[in-house]
């Protein structure tokens, strides 16, 4: 349980969600992104390839960081959602709010 942040060659902060994004760890994600934004980072990719489950607090955290990134003129993308995780975005209509790519590779090309 945790997040791994790596800056790729194209300057994108790739944040990997390890296990779950839920009420118990969403603050860490928000903090991580806030610090990176403060540091001048503009491009963010949240990769769910290694995530098993997320809850509505986790979705809320994503809404919050995407707002923050956009306010700074940056861009946030999501990737690696399996069928079940993706359906959470659909049923909450958040799929219309986020740029979602199938894989981290595809998302990185899209930036």
């Amino acid at each position: 349980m945790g997040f791994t942040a790596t800056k790729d060659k194209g300057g994108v902060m790739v944040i990997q969600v390890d296990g779950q994004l839920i009420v118990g760890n969403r603050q860490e994600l928000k903090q991580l992104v806030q610090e990176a934004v403060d540091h001048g980072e503009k491009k963010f990719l949240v990769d769910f390839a290694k995530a098993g489950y997320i809850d509505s607090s986790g979705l809320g955290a994503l809404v919050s960081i995407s707002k923050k990134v956009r306010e700074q003129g940056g861009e946030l993308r999501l990737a690696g959602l399996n069928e079940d995780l993706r359906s959470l975005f659909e049923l909450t209509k958040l799929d219309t709010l986020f740029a979602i790519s199938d894989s981290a590779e595809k998302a990185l090309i899209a930036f």
Partner: protein
Amino acid sequence: MTSPLRLVVRRTSDVDLPVEVSTRIPSVLDAVHESVEVLARHAFAGLPTSPECERLRNRLKTLLCEALANAIVYGHREDPAKFVAVRIEVETTLVRVHVTDEGPGFDPSAVRPPLDPADLEQETGRGLLMIQRLADDVSFNPQGNSICMTLRRP
């Protein structure tokens, strides 16, 4: 010369044993993750590790997160001295998850999730919606401080 071999295999008794797993969780959001993992482990002990069962397990965990967070935040205002009661009934064909807090309860039919395009940037309000869509059945006690979420097993 081969030796004679006799094999006695016992008929397996077809016991369909409903098991209940229960616990009480302190009203601290930091306890949610560990509690969810422990509960899922005990409730689904012996469930195969097929992708299908892994999905069911994750669905259960999301549902538990939602119901526990609501009980802790709205039911108990994060008072660590209050405990959320969780009871999971595991049967052959379904799993029933009861989450009960000591709070005043609420009227779930009055909740409106932020589904309008103008509301999508709201950070909260999606918990019940997710519960209703992830569970195969959802019911509340009359007071509204105890939720029962049913999952059909594959």
